[in-house]
């Protein structure tokens, strides 16, 4: 009897996970299939491949300067991610080696910024950027999110697992603190950096509200903004839009798959 119950709960598990996996993946399949269909076919829910792929790509290319827009997105996400990882990992390491009495108070204040919703600072930020003449620039997109408290928290948690003997040994050898950070901490924490890279790159790549406000000319816009404006027409040309959504999704998808192993390892390290 218990064998049957176990068998039943066992298969229930597979059904549940299978269903969840299917629902999770289906929109991606839908995206790829729809890119080969005409808008009329997409609207009536056709789920087989069509012949409109080339037409859709052509229409998209005539409406969007693809290399420029993709370059804008890659530049923002790449530079933003590198700066964020540098600043937040320094801070995460710093808070662990920090011996000041003020440390916990300062750290608490940093964590407090996690609770500040973006909407609450968006208007003053916009005014600051306008005053600094940075509206419509990519610097303005990157600056406010470099010191992201969530990533500082993540690096600090991960740093707790960094063996202090390594630091002590390095110190005996006469290494300065920044040398320890650069030559020992950084290589040892590679998977932590990899996981943070995936998360932060996605944040920059997918960022929408802030670029929507700051980037005003067509030459500075990101792929996300362009796809969104194509899709907001009264009768959007979904066939064309799907080419855009694929372009907007591919890089993050690629990075995720390329770094999946390190990503999971890094996440495991951070919740210990």
């Amino acid at each position, binding site marked *: 009897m218990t064998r049957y119950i176990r068998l039943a709960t066992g298969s229930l598990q597979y059904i549940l996970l299978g269903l969840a996996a299917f629902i999770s993946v289906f929109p991606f399949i839908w995206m790829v299939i729809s890119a080969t269909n005409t808008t009329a076919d997409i609207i009536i829910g056709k789920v087989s491949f069509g012949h409109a792929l080339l037409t859709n790509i052509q229409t998209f290319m005539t409406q969007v300067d693809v290399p420029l827009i993709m370059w804008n997105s890659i530049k923002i996400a790449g530079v933003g991610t590198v700066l964020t990882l540098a600043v937040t990992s320094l801070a995460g390491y710093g808070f662990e080696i*920090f011996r000041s009495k003020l440390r916990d108070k300062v750290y608490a204040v940093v964590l407090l910024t996690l609770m500040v*919703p*973006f909407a609450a600072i968006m208007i003053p930020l*916009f005014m600051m950027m306008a005053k600094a003449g940075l509206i419509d620039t990519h610097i303005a997109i990157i600056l406010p999110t470099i010191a992201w408290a969530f990533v500082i928290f993540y690096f600090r948690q991960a740093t707790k697992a960094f063996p202090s003997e390594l630091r002590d040994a390095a110190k005996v050898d006469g290494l300065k603190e920044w040398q320890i950070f650069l030559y020992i901490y950084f290589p040892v924490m590679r998977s932590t950096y990899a996981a943070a890279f995936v998360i932060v790159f996605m944040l920059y790549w*997918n960022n*929408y509200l802030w670029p929507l406000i700051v980037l005003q000319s067509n030459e500075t816009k990101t792929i996300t903004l362009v796809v969104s404006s194509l899709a*907001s027409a009264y009768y959007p040309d979904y066939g064309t839009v799907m080419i855009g959504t694929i372009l907007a999704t591919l890089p993050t998808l690629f990075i995720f798959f390329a770094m999946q192993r390190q990503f999971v390892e890094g996440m495991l390290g951070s919740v210990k």
Partner: protein
Amino acid sequence: MAKARPGNLKRFYDVNGWLFVAPALLLIATFMFYPIIRSLVLSTFSGRGMMMKFVGFGNVVRLWNDPVFWQALTNTMTFLVIQVPVMIMLALILANALNNPRLRFSGLFRTAIFLPCVSSLVAYAILFKSMFATNGIINSTLAGIGIIDTPIEWFTDPFWAKTLVILAITWRWTGYNMIFYLAALQNIDKSIYEAARIDGVPAYRRFLHITIPMLKPVILFTTITSTIGTLQLFDEVYNLTEGTGGPANATLTLSLYIYNLTFRFMPNFGYAATVSYVIVLIVAVLSFLQFYAARERS
């Protein structure tokens, strides 16, 4: 290396500590603290564009009498109260199922369920918009398996428009939260489960009495981040409804309202800043309550 004489050691550490955190602190002060204070000051002013005059609590009075604000607040809270608990439960159940060491294809399941949070908010909002069209794939599937007779009007019916937003954010974020639980679950000592199994504790009780209590800190963390995320909901509703906030403002969120007040209607930075402080207050109160509740029970 600095002259690390024992007496000097403490100060030596300090200088390094400060240097390492300085860039972050500087940026946070400039792009977080200054704006949040500036926002508070702004909220006492009103007027169009840059022509603003001091109104004291005038914006608060206007807020109190603004039906659109109350609508946006109610919508946001509705999304929060329904979506966050459903998603957290779902993520826990999925993580628990995936943590089974005898499960086959677990890597495949895990990757598939995590996949949505790789997509951009804008891209999936657009995908959902096309899938949930009146004659679209979702309605025809539901009709095909006999669940509905007439197509659901996902975009023109206020109830279904709200439901669609909830479905969309659940799709996007469940896998993300699940990964945190999965990571935490793998750090739990397996022998605790073994002991419970030998004692004949059934699976659902092991889940309720071992898994959930052990994961409490992670659950707290994900609940707070999800709460903050839902309170800031913007990309999805903006892209699902072309920025209008849906039929009769049914999916208008606080963030979208702030955006409209600032950049869509005649700009009124002061009033928009006042609305934004409502979100700050809610986040502060809810986070405090969640911390408090977590502390009480442990």
